[in-house]
């Protein structure tokens, strides 16, 4: 391992002499900024989740339009810092292995609660698509009888989540909570989000939707679990935390992880899975925050997270700036024009995502943009997709320019023994 990087760093130096000899920040400083921003973002996500938890508790103890709307507002606010953390996901195994618990999507919501008849029942892909655990205190799973008489965080996290190995069985995280706060959006491509009445949480005779005690129990358990999951991740990014240790184990691999996170989120995940697919299918529920109609914000803050990681500057939810030596500085030292290209493309994407956001906020919701033949909506979404695809090309150029090419090769687990060949 050590010898391998000696070889590559000698090669990198060879290139540096022919390139620009500006004052490059050390990779260690760049990684430190990156980790500090992660720490701040996950801490902000945790703080916002605790506000959500307080609002959910208020809703459960005193259900009303006011407490339901307050809980919904807290959920929307909680998404702002969390979505900006998504850029950490694909580059850091510790995040990627964990994130399914908090942000899994899309989900077959019939697993959780009652759904409209148009939803259908169990499918060939998912036998539990209409399980409705809120209405069913016991059920069969893989030949075992599950006791769900009390809905606990353990039941959700360890038994129900990804039940039967199906990813669409999302029992925990933001989107499960979103479903409980909003309910299904039955407006198709028309205006309006999910419209669950607060009476779904009223105990006693005025309960609507049935099983209001179990629904409240579910919402409370899922919110508690979100808080504890975020607490864990925030700890990993503190000084001495495992995520920092992994990142700093090898500086070049660490810088590569930053770029991997930026590129994978931009291209395969956001431009592909989350934006282009829904457009191609013209499906109003094929949007990231389909119950709350908050998709425009989710996309926007994902994009912002990519940009602020590159620039090495994040503004906390209380206004505190966090920043330092950045990947951008590192690129400037190697190829200033490539840095300018990256900044221009990130700004271009943010303008496109900003147009989706501002248009949605003006009343033209994301699910309306997805409608077949809606040229304005298609142009808005494709503007974001094209920006994200275009910026990925420049991220690839940076991987090449910083001579990080060999990292993936080094990290390849398909090789029998990558170190052996260098001895």
């Amino acid at each position: 391992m050590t010898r391998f990087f000696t070889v590559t760093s000698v090669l990198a130096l060879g290139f540096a002499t022919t390139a620009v000899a500006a004052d490059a920040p050390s990779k260690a400083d760049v990684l430190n900024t990156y980790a500090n921003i992660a720490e701040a973002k996950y801490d902000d996500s945790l703080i916002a989740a605790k506000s959500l938890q307080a609002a959910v508790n208020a809703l459960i103890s005193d259900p009303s339009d006011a407490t339901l709307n307050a809980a919904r507002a807290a959920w929307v606010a909680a998404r702002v810092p969390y979505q900006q953390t998504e850029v950490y996901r694909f580059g850091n195994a510790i995040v990627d292995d964990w994130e399914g618990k908090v942000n899994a999507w899309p989900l077959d919501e019939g697993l959780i609660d009652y759904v409209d008849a148009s939803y259908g029942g169990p499918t060939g892909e998912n036998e539990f698509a209409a399980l409705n655990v809120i209405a069913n205190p016991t059920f069969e799973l893989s030949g075992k009888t599950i006791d769900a008489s009390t809905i606990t965080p353990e039941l959700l996290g360890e038994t129900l989540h990804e039940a039967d190995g199906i990813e669409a069985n999302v029992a925990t995280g933001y989107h499960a909570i979103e479903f409980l706060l909003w309910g299904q959006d039955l407006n198709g491509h028309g205006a309006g989000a999910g419209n669950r009445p607060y009476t779904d949480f009223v105990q006693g005779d005025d309960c609507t939707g049935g099983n209001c005690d179990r629904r409240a129990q579910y919402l409370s358990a899922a919110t508690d679990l979100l808080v504890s999951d975020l607490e864990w991740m925030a700890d990993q990014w503190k000084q001495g935390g495992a995520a920092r240790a992994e990142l700093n184990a090898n500086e070049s691999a660490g810088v590569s992880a930053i770029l991997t996170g930026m590129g994978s989120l931009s291209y395969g995940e956001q431009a592909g899975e989350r934006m282009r697919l829904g457009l191609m299918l013209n499906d109003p529920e094929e949007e990231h925050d389909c119950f709350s109609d908050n998709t425009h914000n989710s996309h926007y803050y994902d994009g912002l997270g990519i940009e602020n990681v590159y620039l090495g500057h994040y503004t906390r939810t209380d206004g505190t700036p966090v920043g330092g030596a950045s990947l951008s500085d590192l690129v400037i030292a190697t190829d200033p024009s490539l840095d300018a290209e990256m900044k221009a493309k990130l700004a271009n994407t943010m303008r496109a995502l900003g147009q989706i956001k501002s248009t949605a906020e003006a009343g033209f919701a994301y699910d309306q943009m997805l409608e077949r033949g809606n040229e304005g909506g298609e142009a808005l979404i494709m503007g974001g997709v094209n920006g994200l695809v275009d910026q990925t090309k420049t991220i690839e150029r940076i991987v090449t320019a910083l001579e990080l090419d060999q990292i993936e090769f080094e990290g390849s687990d398909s090789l029998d023994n990558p170190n052996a060949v260098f001895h």
Partner: protein
Amino acid sequence: MRAIVLALSLTLPVGAFAQDRLPILTDTVNAHILPGYAALAEATQTLATAAQTNCDPMSAALRAAYHTAFDDWISISHLRFGPSEVDDRAFALAFWPDTKGFTPKALTSLISAEDAAIQSSAAFAETSVAGRGFFALEQMLYDPQFSQLGSEDYRCALIQAMAKDINLNASAINADWEVYAANLTSPGETSPYRSENEAMQELYKALITGLEFTAETRLGRPMGTFDRPRPKRAEARRSERSLRHVALSLTALRDLAARLSADHPDIAADLDGAFAAAIGRAQSLDDPAFEGVATAQGRFRIEALQQSINDIRAIASAELGPTLGINAGFNSLDGD
């Protein structure tokens, strides 16, 4: 052998940058990409004509034309860049995997509503990609669920609209490639590829992504886990084409790999040997729709096939990429 190749690749990256990539770029475009898309355009024309002549799902001529055209698509399905991505053409040709059952949903909706969009090519092209292309056509031809649904006249017109739409997309990609080819063979400021290295990266990425898709998706999806195999997730299982797709894609990727490694005979030989082993395993597997994933013995053989593809991937990423001085970049499979 491998050690020497790797050591050389690390000591000679400057040489790698100085490589004249033009012969390989030109060869790959002219002998791999352009003929592949031309064949697809022609086969889909035959398919559209066959559907027009006889839209009966049981028609031998229609089914034969479907198989030939689908073969030609699978043989170029790794070339997902440039013209295939314009207007979502490739997705409209082949929407798979369909993790949430969008295709049956789209077909049911079109047929039940007797959606008039099928009457015009332009309107049909606006409809969901899940109800278009080879995988939607497959369900119309082979899934009993759709042999009786709605009216026979509408089903017939839908099959004809699908075949025509497939042909229009294939022809559009083929026509665009005549122009797009120059981007790869003359990279520079006017091309999406700024340098020969970037053009080469696109082709290398197609190889890596194609191998990944065949191993992880074409095989991995039906395999599921040992306790929970998923035979119904096999690609095009209704027309029993799942294994055929693996063999076709490996054959096409072998051709691409040979061209990309033309300047490095040792690596070319390593790759070719690994492809021969994988294709041999595929050919000896008598399990067209991967139903065997549900039995211990069948699963073992499919796992062995998957492993042999992973062996090719290891050579491509550990020997070919570093020697060419090219990294795999990002691909569409990078998300979850």
